[in-house]
């Protein structure tokens, strides 16, 4: 009787806890039937609820692409909102299978936290926003300007470095919260607002008159944002990395979610290999032969995801810039699939 009671209690407790063995992540994912994806609490264009209260964004699309590759079903994803403090713990503790959460790829993170960066989904960098009426056209004209900055961030250090390197004077107006910084800039308490250029664009879109403000062309820091997986599981890492490459490769070859079915009949050997018509590149990854076809069919290629979430047609309105393909003047580059 007592044994039964213990067993019952244990079952009840285990019902709310999930135990997975130390097996390969891909096997675990296949067993549970979905990819657990760590996202932000809400950054427009990257991971945010849309008007139907469904997660959307360029980083969400990456998780959907992985689910499409594994399950042929881009909806087989569950999302966990993570704060920036808990994101790496959640990843290493196995609470999420992939972290796709505006995470900057740095050396110390890559080498010291037991995690591996998959690639750079989005090349971001710190920029400056000024009022158009001020007639400033370059960051080098900013000498003596009052700059609104969020305290304790790398933003503050980067700005100090940049101004020192160009021997310019500046005054900082420091706040602890991003919203306060924006408010202060809007109220005219400073001439310049600086943060990552994607965030600048998003904040600008919220202003009453976005056209009164311009983002200066200079980018003063490198912020490569990319998905992250646990270190040590090569199979899962490869799947994540080649999901990212497949998105780029599809754009390069002109395969989109709209024309992917026609492209199955293409004569181009590169397209044949990508879509699994010729050769089998999926099985070594642990997925089916048509893995890339499934990704493109349900999520689209990199350009589609970019344009849908952060591109010029969206309220965020970011040009491709560095994120264009290498042949279009950007630095997004995927090794060939062969």
């Amino acid at each position, binding site marked *: 009787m007592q044994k039964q009671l213990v067993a019952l209690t244990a079952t009840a407790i285990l019902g*709310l*806890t*999930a*135990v*997975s*063995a*130390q097996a390969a992540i891909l096997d*675990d994912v296949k067993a549970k039937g979905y990819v657990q994806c760590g996202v932000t*609490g*809400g*950054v*427009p264009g990257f991971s*945010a*609820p849309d*008007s*139907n*209260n*469904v*997660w959307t964004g360029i980083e969400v699309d990456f998780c959907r692409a992985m689910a499409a590759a594994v399950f042929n079903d881009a909806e087989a994803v*569950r*999302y*966990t*909102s*993570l*704060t920036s*403090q*808990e994101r790496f*713990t*959640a990843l290493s*503790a*196995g*609470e999420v299978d992939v972290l796709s959460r505006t995470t900057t790829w740095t050396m110390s993170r890559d080498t010291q936290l037991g995690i591996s960066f998959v690639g750079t989904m989005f090349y971001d960098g710190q920029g400056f926003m000024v009022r158009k009426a001020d007639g400033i056209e370059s960051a080098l004209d900013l000498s003596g300007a009052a700059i609104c900055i969020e305290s304790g961030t790398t933003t503050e250090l980067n700005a100090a470095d940049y101004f020192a390197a160009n021997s310019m004077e500046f005054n900082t107006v420091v706040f602890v919260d991003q*919203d306060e910084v924006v408010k202060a800039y809007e109220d005219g308490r400073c001439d310049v607002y600086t943060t990552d250029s994607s965030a600048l664009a*998003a904040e600008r*879109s*919220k202003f*009453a008159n976005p056209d009164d403000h311009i983002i200066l062309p200079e980018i003063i820091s490198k912020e490569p944002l990319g998905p992250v997986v646990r270190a040590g599981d090569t199979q899962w890492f490869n799947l994540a990395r080649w999901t990212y490459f497949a998105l780029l490769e599809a754009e390069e070859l002109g395969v989109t979610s709209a024309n992917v079915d026609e492209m199955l009949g293409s004569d181009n050997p590169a397209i044949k290999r990508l879509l699994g018509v010729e050769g089998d590149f999926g099985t070594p990854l642990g997925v089916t032969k048509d893995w890339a076809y499934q990704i493109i069919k349900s999520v689209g290629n990199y350009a589609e995801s970019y344009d849908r979430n952060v591109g010029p047609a*969206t*309220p*965020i309105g970011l040009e491709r810039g560095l994120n264009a393909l290498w042949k279009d003047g950007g630095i997004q580059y995927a090794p060939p699939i062969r």
Partner: protein
Amino acid sequence: MTDIGFVRSDMVSARPAPHRTTGAVAWARKNLFSTPLDTGLTILGLLFLAWIVPPLFGFFIGNAVGPNGTVEQCRMENAGACWAYIAAEMEFFIYGFYDIPEHWRPNIVFALGALLFVPLLIPKAPFKRTNAVLFIVVYPIVSYFLLAGGVFGLKVIPTEKWGGLLVTLIISVIGITLSFPLGVILALGRQSQLPIIKTVCVGFIELIRAVPLITILFMASIMLPLFMPQGMTVDKFLRAIVGVTLFTSAYMAEVVRGGLQAIPRGQYEAASALGLGYWKRMWFIILPQALKHVIPGIVNNFISLFKDTSLVYIVGMKDLLEAVKTKNDTALEWQSGNTATTGYIFAAMVFWVFCFGMSRYSIYMERRLNTGYKR
């Protein structure tokens, strides 16, 4: 001798109070203008109202954009609160990411909860015992399966998708119903003669009370996974509920202990003299008196628990406040000067309604139970 004595056989009907002591003028004279200082303060107060009320009225009602308005109206110069934004995003504020076609499930949970909870609050409603059992035992089980799904062909909705007011209410209802009995047990344990029980209770209470709730939630979300075997995880929602409940129960224990100490020793002795055992003594004699004394403190804890639920954003849960904040940041199609402000005002109003309701009910309860000390 003729009888000229006069004896009134009926009462003189009361005459109205002197003109100067009744009516609006007299009231104003008594309460607003009785001294020069009062007069000065009254005038200052009126000036303050004249200064503050018109802009507030303009913002909330006069210039506000109604629920059917458009974002263009919200973006106009001089526009007030953007209620259209609240109306458009209401579903997210109430259910979070919960699948829209499945919203009937939380709706049933809300309705069932109200149906079972309201009679519990009304002293005259019958079947108290059945009602309590239904609410405390059956209702949570039914709600869990209804919300989480996976049985009877219901679609599985993982707790990550729960959000908004739904999460706020679930955490606070579970927190309140569990932390109160737990607090009573801890308080009794702290007064226990048995050293082990006493040490454990004192240790628990002092440990939890000495740590901020944020730290407990932080521990639960960041440290706990590191202690657990690789690959084993506990649902974040469960972690948040356990954290909030334990935290409140420690405070509750101290409030109840205050009540226990207010009971004269004679009551304990009299109960013993009647031959009652420990539990009967506590249940029938001591606790009913002790708890009555500390109703304000208990409700204080309930209210602060309700408000503390907004701290679960630390473990990445989207409670009402966090849901509002998320939409403020991400609903670019609704951006305007007052969108975020309106969102926060809405959250504040919802919190106020619930907390004020709890406070009024506690006052009613105090009056009802205050039989021995009524003055």
